[in-house]
């Protein structure tokens, strides 16, 4: 990246802007005032203990979850607004935001009645009205890039978890999103399959894709993150570069969390 590009990026508005988000499920406050800006090309990795609200937060960005207060803006378009008590969500804005955001789920959520190729082809054809031939070509290219050239005609249940998740990533990329959201993309995988998925995510990060990644893979986080965001009990506890967060965190709870996740696997 050239310095002029970097400067342009620094001055441009954030691609994703989360402001003052609160959310309560029943009686339980799950998010308690979260602000987060993600600029184009940035890789933001969200970590934190289970139940701290990471999934809820990431799902709000593409309006799979609603907010109680605050505002979410994607590429300059407000998609959810609850700043003055009333919740407003504009269907057209939500659709636009979803077109710009690819989402990868913990449990893959591939379409079981379609082959890998059809999973990747169908959304661009049906949603973006891409001609079939073009969509097929794009899907084949993406699946090849994911190392799945020989799996294109298999149904999801014929694929391993790692292969399924790579198809899911290809499916999201086929919509040509401006940013990708990953919610614990490797948590449902057998340990020996985690690496192959992390590899394609790393490649994606290196290609300049804007990404918000929720993960428990700390070594991976340290490698790809421009910024680490530590969540705890519905708040952002602290954030900073991997060096700062992993070497000299400001909060005792961050240290505690990092000790707990890193020691069993990597010490």
């Amino acid at each position, binding site marked *: 990246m050239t310095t002029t590009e970097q400067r342009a990026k620094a001055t441009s508005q954030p691609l994703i802007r989360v402001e003052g988000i609160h959310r309560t499920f029943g009686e339980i406050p799950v998010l308690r005032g979260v602000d987060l800006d993600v600029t184009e090309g940035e890789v933001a990795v969200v970590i934190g203990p289970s139940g701290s609200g990471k999934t809820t937060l990431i799902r709000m960005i593409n309006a*799979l979850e609603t907010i109680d207060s605050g505002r979410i803006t994607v590429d300059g378009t407000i998609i959810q607004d609850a700043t003055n008590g009333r919740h407003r969500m504009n269907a057209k804005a939500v*659709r636009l935001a*979803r077109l710009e*955001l*690819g989402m990868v789920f913990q449990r893959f*959520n591939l379409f*079981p*009645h379609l082959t890998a190729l059809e999973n990747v082809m169908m*959304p661009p054809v049906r949603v973006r009205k891409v001609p079939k031939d073009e969509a097929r070509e794009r899907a084949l290219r993406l699946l090849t890039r994911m190392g799945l050239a020989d799996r294109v005609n298999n149904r999801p249940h014929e694929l391993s978890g790692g292969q399924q998740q790579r198809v899911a990533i290809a*499916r999201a990329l086929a919509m040509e999103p401006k940013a990708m959201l990953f919610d614990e993309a490797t948590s449902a995988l057998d340990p020996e399959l985690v690496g192959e998925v992390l590899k394609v995510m790393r490649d994606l990060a290196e290609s300049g894709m804007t990404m918000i990644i929720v993960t428990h893979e700390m070594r991976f986080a340290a490698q790809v993150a421009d910024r680490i965001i530590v969540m705890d009990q519905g708040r952002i506890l602290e954030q900073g570069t991997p060096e700062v967060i992993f070497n000299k965190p400001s909060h005792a709870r961050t240290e505690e969390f990092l000790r707990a996740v890193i020691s069993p696997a990597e010490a």
Partner: protein
Amino acid sequence: MTLDLTKEWLPRLLEGMKYTVAITIGAFILALLLGLVIAVMRLDRRRWYLYVPATIYVEVLRGTPLILQLFFAYFALPAMGIQLSPLTAAILGLGANTSAYLSEIFRGAIRTVDQGQWEASAALAMDWPTMMRSVILPQAMRIALPPTGNYAVSLFKDSALASTVSVAELLFTGQVIGSETFRYMEIYALIGLLYLAVSYPTSLLLRRLETHLELSRPRSRKKPSVPAPVEAEKEPVS
């Protein structure tokens, strides 16, 4: 008897069978379309303006006798200025009735589609009709297919009720022949065989289809092909 049977009765009965089949096919197509619409209308209670009328429709049709519904279509609608031919009235009555039951099957099948499928489609910016058509319904229909087939067989048998609104279908034709010849025993036995000749092979076919779908369904645990040993059951469980 053989002479009467082949020369006279059978051609007339087969003529009646044509109507039976026509009623079945017509009513079934109507039931599929209405059933799907009603099922979709009842998916979301918050859309009460769809949910409430669809629910009333289902409860009325399931809570009243089918024969009453047929009489209503044929005898009562003319009082409102709607004159239907016997065949149309039968197709309408049977189709509407079956649609109420099919809608419940469809709704149940749609509900069994994993929540993650709705979310993945939404995240891919699909609008509701696209989501339904490309993701949810193709999966739901696989689940709904066997019970839907069974309703087709039921409908085929229930089409005999059309005789009460004077459609010259199989049973009606048999009754006419019976009243001419008084050989009710033979004629009704023959009609029974004719119904069976269609419904039994269809049921067998459906069962095979069901097994096929069961085996080709993702995540379905295959039953062991060898029955589990039974000796263990003889032992008292301590």
